[in-house]
């Protein structure tokens, strides 16, 4: 509470004071068209004063004295520095430039000119983010930055994305560290993409080492928009509305075909087919369950923003509303977000600045069960028999008489789902920055990230029986008792950070910037929840535990909390000589509460250097206007592996037993998981060699990097022999390598008013596990219900989570072939799959499994193209992955009644009829459904993520309206996907909580194809 008070107090400090020595004004014009440049930045060098040109290109600025120097910059123009030399009127002519070298990039605890950076950093600008309506911030990174792989964890509204920077380099959580305005935050769901000014992705070990224990998976630095000093007030309004539709439907059996296959399956197993399927033709088409669950769904967004600045203050105030319904479930799978943001700074003294960033977010997410083969609506729709209608004659939902468990009427299941997550989150920081001496800045920032999330679940009473008295529906199609449950989760993280930085230039050519700082960070998670049954009302509006009539002792309640803290010290020195040679050294020390006292602190050093070759005398090749070689080495750590207290055994109550004549529940206590007092930091070491080349003053840019990242002492709860009797302790186990290279190319030019900008990037990564702890036993994951075994295996010499199973070798065509082959199963018959006897022992068993695919792509790539002519713009964005495999686990082969893909019509029915689609048999005696390459498919795809055409009306509107921009656009997202994958969507992220389970399609909620129209207005 104390911290919150302090925070609010500082946020309240917006005071207006002004002091100035002299005023300089003038007009800035472009040499291209001799018109005023709107929105150019004029700043005093080494000072805080600044201004933005107005709609006529005019500016006015207070400067400390006549010896000051003005810095003038504008995107796409060459920046200039002009000494004031006592003048009060300075007009400037700016020359167009394509070079990005002067762009100021946000890096760890500071900013650097792009040309000065010696690490590997990618940047996404506000312009790129707003160019394609991003639903979540992570999407803005997808396909645009080399080395960053982004994939949807689900296509359902509000679902998270998985972001992997230079591959998966840990057995635990592989998400990068997200820093928003200096605040370390967990997840980006709260952030409105329209509020973002820039995103920097720190990729190499040297860039991330300043974040020490937190930067091992890369760092994503996000800066939200703020106003600019001297900028005239600006109002922006953006909005779009779109319709989402499913992009693809699977070809499944219709009722007639289903009956044929069922009959054949029964006969093959020596059983009598069901009487009602005797005449398949009479069943006709039956029900298309995909049509029954898929729908069109709206998506809409509105944003209103105000920003500006005086010579002492800046401000930005934005409000946003976003709503997206799901293409499965509609408003039962919707995501609604309100955000508000206030960013402000103020110079209290000419040496003292205070400011704040403050974002408030309210999220409501209604979600269906997703991505599991047991009870997700999608898996039910794909597996439900087509004979059962959606509804009975009386209009109520029907049930399948064939279905046993799991596969129920998906439409009813959606209707009976009332799962709502409501989240309120405040992320904000207040800072004081002092500049007591020239070149010295000392900044203290206090920030909080407070999340208050409530999950409400209601399970109503329903009964799909035909006869309400007999209640004939199977158990899974009726719920005779209603249930209400809730869970509260509060995360409260505070962080206090103090940084001193000092910049000095010696003898004109030596630039030295040093920073030292410390951070204290404490995180606390409180949770509680409860549930009860029997509400007299079946209305979800009445679903509160207080309304239940069951006895109080029937309430399931729980409460708990967990805490962690981090104490860090860090420093960095950046040295540059003559803009030609640059070097940087960092060191960070992190203490984590998650380790015992013996191993609490970890130390993370880095070093990097750059050489701008084109500035050497000997370099004479004119087309190359910039050429820099970079090399870096750095070390990071990871302290997290689930529990906040992995170093000790925690005795927990609740291991109860019943004693006494009245069956009294009596407490028992024991530690369920062993502690590991010797646990230490997981560390990753990365070496990077890179090159930045600019041709023709920025028309063509090329950046290439080669990197090797090794993670050792990886934290993981390796399974231990059950004889221990406890859950496994977290241990430092495996070592993993990610090697690869990445390339980004961009070409931009303008020809007679036609501007274009095309770019591409590609990343190759090879992931390999190089050791696996003491026993070295492979780690398995990815249980597949229909195969009754696991599909992912993490082993030395293989990529993490590689697919492991049997290798198919066509089908047995006749009894001789069965007899001639190794023994598979007692009742193997012609038409069954022949599995390879890899160890030649004459029997097909678990020893004949091998690695049959990798969920990790060989490479990922993206293309962008932007074209503009006289206010008309066209944007294209494509993204793809290549070389990964997907386990298609969407058919429940463990059930005999489920529907099948239409490919089963090509099944084996006699010698020579098929060599790939096995015979059908309800008993599947040969276990054709076992984990094998039969279910491994190529996951490669190329997707046209966004195509957009827009028109800016500003030029044709009367100038006295003073409208800077009024752009209308039409966009299509996920319009085309090129893939061989037979499922609904090949873009599968890390769906599972288990980091070793990768690339399994258990009924992935597909991404929608969206057509939307929008407007962007600035005045």
């Amino acid at each position, binding site marked *: 509470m104390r911290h919150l008070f302090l925070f609010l107090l500082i946020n309240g400090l917006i005071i207006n004071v002004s002091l100035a020595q002299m005023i300089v004004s003038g007009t800035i014009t472009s040499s291209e068209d001799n018109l005023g440049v709107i929105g150019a930045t004029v700043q005093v060098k080494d000072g805080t004063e600044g201004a933005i040109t107005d709609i006529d290109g005019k500016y006015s600025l207070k400067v400390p004295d006549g010896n000051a120097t003005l810095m003038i910059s504008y995107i796409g123009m060459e920046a200039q520095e002009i000494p004031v030399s006592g003048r009060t009127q300075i007009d400037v002519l700016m020359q167009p430039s394509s070079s990005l070298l002067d762009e100021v990039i946000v890096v760890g605890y500071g900013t650097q000119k792009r040309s000065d950076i010696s690490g590997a950093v990618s940047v996404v600008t506000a312009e790129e983010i707003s160019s394609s309506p991003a639903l979540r911030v992570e999407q803005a990174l997808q396909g645009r930055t080399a080395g960053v792989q982004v994939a949807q964890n689900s296509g359902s509204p509000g679902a998270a994305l998985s972001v992997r920077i230079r591959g998966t380099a840990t057995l635990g959580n592989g998400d990068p560290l997200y820093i928003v305005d200096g605040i370390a935050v967990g997840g980006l769901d709260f952030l409105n993409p329209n509020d973002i000014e820039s995103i920097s992705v720190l990729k190499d070990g040297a860039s991330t080492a300043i974040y020490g224990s937190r930067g091992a998976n890369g760092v994503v630095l996000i800066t939200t928009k703020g106003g600019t000093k001297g900028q005239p007030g600006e109002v922006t309004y953006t909005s779009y509305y779109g319709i989402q539709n499913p992009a693809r439907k699977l070809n499944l059996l219709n009722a007639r075909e289903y009956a044929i296959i069922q009959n054949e399956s029964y006969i093959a197993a020596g059983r009598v087919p069901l009487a009602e399927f005797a005449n398949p033709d009479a069943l006709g088409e039956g029900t298309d369950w995909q049509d029954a669950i898929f729908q069109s769904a709206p998506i809409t967004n509105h944003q209103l923003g105000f920003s500006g600045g005086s010579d002492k203050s800046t401000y930005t105030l934005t409000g946003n509303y976003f709503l997206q319904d799901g293409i499965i479930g509609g408003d039962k799978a919707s995501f609604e977000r309100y955000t508000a943001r206030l960013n402000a700074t103020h110079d209290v*003294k000419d040496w003292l600045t205070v400011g704040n960033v403050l974002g408030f977010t309210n999220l409501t997410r209604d979600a269906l069960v997703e991505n599991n083969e047991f009870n997700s609506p999608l898996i039910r729709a794909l597996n439900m028999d087509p004979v059962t209608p959606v509804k009975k004659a009386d209009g109520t939902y029907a049930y399948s008489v064939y279905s*046993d468990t799991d596969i129920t009427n998906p439409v009813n299941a959606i209707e009976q789902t009332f799962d709502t997550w409501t989240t309120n989150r405040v992320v904000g920081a207040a800072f004081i920055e002092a500049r*007591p001496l020239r070149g010295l800045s*000392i900044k*203290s920032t206090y920030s909080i990230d407070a999340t208050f999330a409530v999950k409400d679940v209601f399970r109503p009473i329903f009964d799909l029986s035909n006869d309400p008295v007999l209640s004939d529906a199977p*158990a899974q199609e009726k719920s005779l008792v209603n249930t209400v449950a809730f869970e509260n989760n509060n995360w409260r993280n505070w962080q206090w950070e*103090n940084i*001193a930085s000092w910049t000095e230039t010696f003898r004109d050519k030596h630039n030295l910037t040093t920073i030292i700082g410390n951070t*204290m960070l404490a995180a606390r998670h409180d949770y509680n929840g409860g549930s*009860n049954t*029997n509400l007299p009302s079946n209305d979800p509006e009445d679903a509160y535990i207080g309304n239940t009539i*069951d*006895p109080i002792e*029937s309430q*399931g309640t729980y409460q708990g909390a*967990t*805490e962690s*803290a981090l*104490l860090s010290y860090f420093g960095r020195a950046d040295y540059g000589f003559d803009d030609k040679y640059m070097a940087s050294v960092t060191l960070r020390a992190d203490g984590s*509460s998650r380790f015992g006292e013996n191993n609490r602190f970890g130390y993370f050093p880095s070093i990097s250097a750059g050489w701008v070759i084109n500035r050497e005398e000997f370099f004479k090749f004119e087309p190359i206007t910039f050429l820099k070689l970079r090399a870096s080495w750095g070390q990071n750590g990871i302290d997290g592996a689930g529990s*906040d*207290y992995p170093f*000790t*055994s*925690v*005795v*927990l109550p609740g*291991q*109860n*037993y*019943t*004693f*006494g*004549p009245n*069956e009294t*529940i*009596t*407490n*028992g*206590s*024991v*530690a*369920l998981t062993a*502690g590991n007092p010797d646990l230490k930091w997981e560390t990753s070491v990365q070496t990077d060699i890179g090159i930045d080349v600019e041709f023709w003053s920025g028309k063509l840019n090329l950046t290439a990097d080669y990197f090797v990242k090794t993670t050792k002492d990886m934290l993981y709860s390796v399974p*231990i*022999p*059950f*004889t*221990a*009797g*406890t859950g496994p*302790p977290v*241990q430092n186990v495996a070592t993993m390598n990610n090697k690869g290279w990445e390339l980004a190319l961009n070409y931009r030019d303008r020809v007679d008013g036609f501007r274009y900008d095309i770019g591409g990037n590609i990343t190759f990564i090879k992931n390999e596990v190089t050791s696996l702890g003491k*026993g*070295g*036993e492979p780690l398995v994951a990815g249980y597949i219900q229909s195969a009754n075994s696991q599909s992912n295996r993490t082993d030395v010499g293989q990529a993490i989570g590689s697919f492991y199973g049997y290798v198919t070798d066509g089908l047995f065509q006749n009894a001789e072939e069965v007899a001639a082959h190794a023994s598979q199963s007692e009742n193997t018959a012609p038409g069954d799959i022949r599995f390879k006897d890899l160890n030649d022992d004459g029997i097909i068993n*678990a020893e004949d499994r091998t690695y049959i695919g990798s969920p990790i792509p060989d490479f990922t790539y993206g293309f962008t193209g932007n074209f503009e002519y006289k206010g008309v713009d066209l944007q294209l964005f494509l993204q793809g992955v290549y070389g990964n495999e997907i386990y298609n686990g969407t058919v429940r082969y463990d059930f*005999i009644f489920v529907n099948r893909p239409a490919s089963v019509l090509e099944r084996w029915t006699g010698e020579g009829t098929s060599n790939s689609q096995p015979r059908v048999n309800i*008993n*599947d005696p040969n276990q054709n459904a076992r984990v094998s390459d039969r279910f491994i498919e190529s996951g490669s795809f190329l997707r046209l993520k966004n195509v957009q055409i827009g028109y800016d009306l500003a030029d044709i509107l009367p100038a006295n309206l003073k409208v800077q921009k009024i752009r209308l656009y039409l966009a299509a997202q996920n319009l085309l996907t090129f893939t061989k994958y037979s499922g609904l969507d090949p873009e599968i992220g890390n769906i599972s909580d288990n980091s070793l389970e990768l690339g399994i399609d258990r009924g992935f909620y597909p991404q929608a194809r969206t057509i939307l129209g929008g407007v962007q207005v600035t005045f």
Partner: protein
Amino acid sequence: MKKLGYTLLIFLAIGCQKDLLEKSPIVGVTEENFYNTEEDAIAAVNAAYAALQFELTPAGHFRWFWGDVMSDDSEKGGSGPNDVFELTQLEEFQGVTNGELLESEWKASYQGIYRANVVLENIPTIEMDETVKAQILGEAKTIRAWFYYNLVTIFGGVPLVDRVLAPSEFNMPRSSADEVWGLILQDLTEAITVLPTRSEYPPEDLGRITKGTAQALLAKSHLWQKNYAAAQQAAADLINSGEYSLTPNYGDIFSLNGENGPGSVFEIQYMQDSGGNWGENNQNEGSLTNVFQRARGQFEGFGFNVPTQDLVDAFFEENSVVEDPRLTYTVFREGDMMGDRGLFTKEATGGFPYDYYPRKYFSNKNEEASFGEPNTNGGSNDRVIRYADVLLMHAEASYHVGDEAAARQSLNQVRERARGVNPNILPDVTASGADLLDAIYHERRMELSMEGHRFFDLVRTGRATDELGALGYTEGVNNLFPIPQSQIQATNGAITQNPGY
């Protein structure tokens, strides 16, 4: 310089948060700070009891899987061969070694052993009432012996974990079966000297391990090892204690009212009204046996553990016209009312072809949990050891030491109760020699069928090949189940497989 002064003030304001990194668990207590009081000691031993209830760890491993489904008394059932396919494979003695059912049995047993070991290691140093302390240690030893009894009879020699293992000890190899039996006998012998008898416990401790529990388990252990004199003695000690008698009416034993009755020697307690979760580390006190063993369809069960014709025929062995009255309480036949859930017809069970369903753990609709999820909250206690079992063990042991009179006396006590109100059936056994032994074996099947004994009785008495050979049983292989393959791998081969697998 004033500016610099102010700025330094900001930096000085940074408090030295020395304790920032000292975080201890908010929920729960670290092991170093627990095990200080009598209350802690009781909570510790209760946690060991909780392991007795584990039925899903994470897969099912019910006692009746091994004792009944593997025997000629019942078959798996369920919705078809693929429903818990591993059980089909086990039932047909196909030698599946990588199954989760075996794994779960292994895992749950060692979880219980760990918890007992925690008690035996931490409680002795607590300052508390010495009598209570001795009792708690006795309970823990008996629980440990029970889990080892299960392990040694299912798997043979297993790793002998008699302490809380350090990470360096995780890869412990197997000990011989004799060494395991050695620990079992030692634990039980020591427990018997300190445990209270059933009547000595206050009523609120009903359900705790008693001296009788340890005595009966000791008798079982000796009998398995063919130490007949010791088995006879242990059984006689229990019988002579006067603590137990046969429930007068056989049919009452398996009613809810019959729980913890006069003949109850060891019952794992379950209750229906506890709500909550289930399975490994469960927080509820209910059993899944009820729902697993009920017929499907209208009876809302899963239809497992289906009695065989062979079992039903056995109830007519003595008198082909008048059945053994215990049949009615063991098996539902078509046309029977299944409690308050309706008439047993094949149509009502969902069309499955089974003629019989098990009755002993059948639960009525009106006995279902009044709140929470009824399936996971079955209320039937698991009748692990009944007085009739002890009498029959006594009879068997007595026979082997040549005391046929004592054998007949114990045997006939069981028959007398079974006879019920019909004096014309189940006459007292007067046979001797091999006929007497056969009579004892037959009686065990009639009295204890569908209670998880049959497979082990057949293996123990060397009759498994005769009775189960047709089902695929091979002596020397199938008398033990395979060690879970995952555990051989997890220990890097320190644990070895049983012969024949």
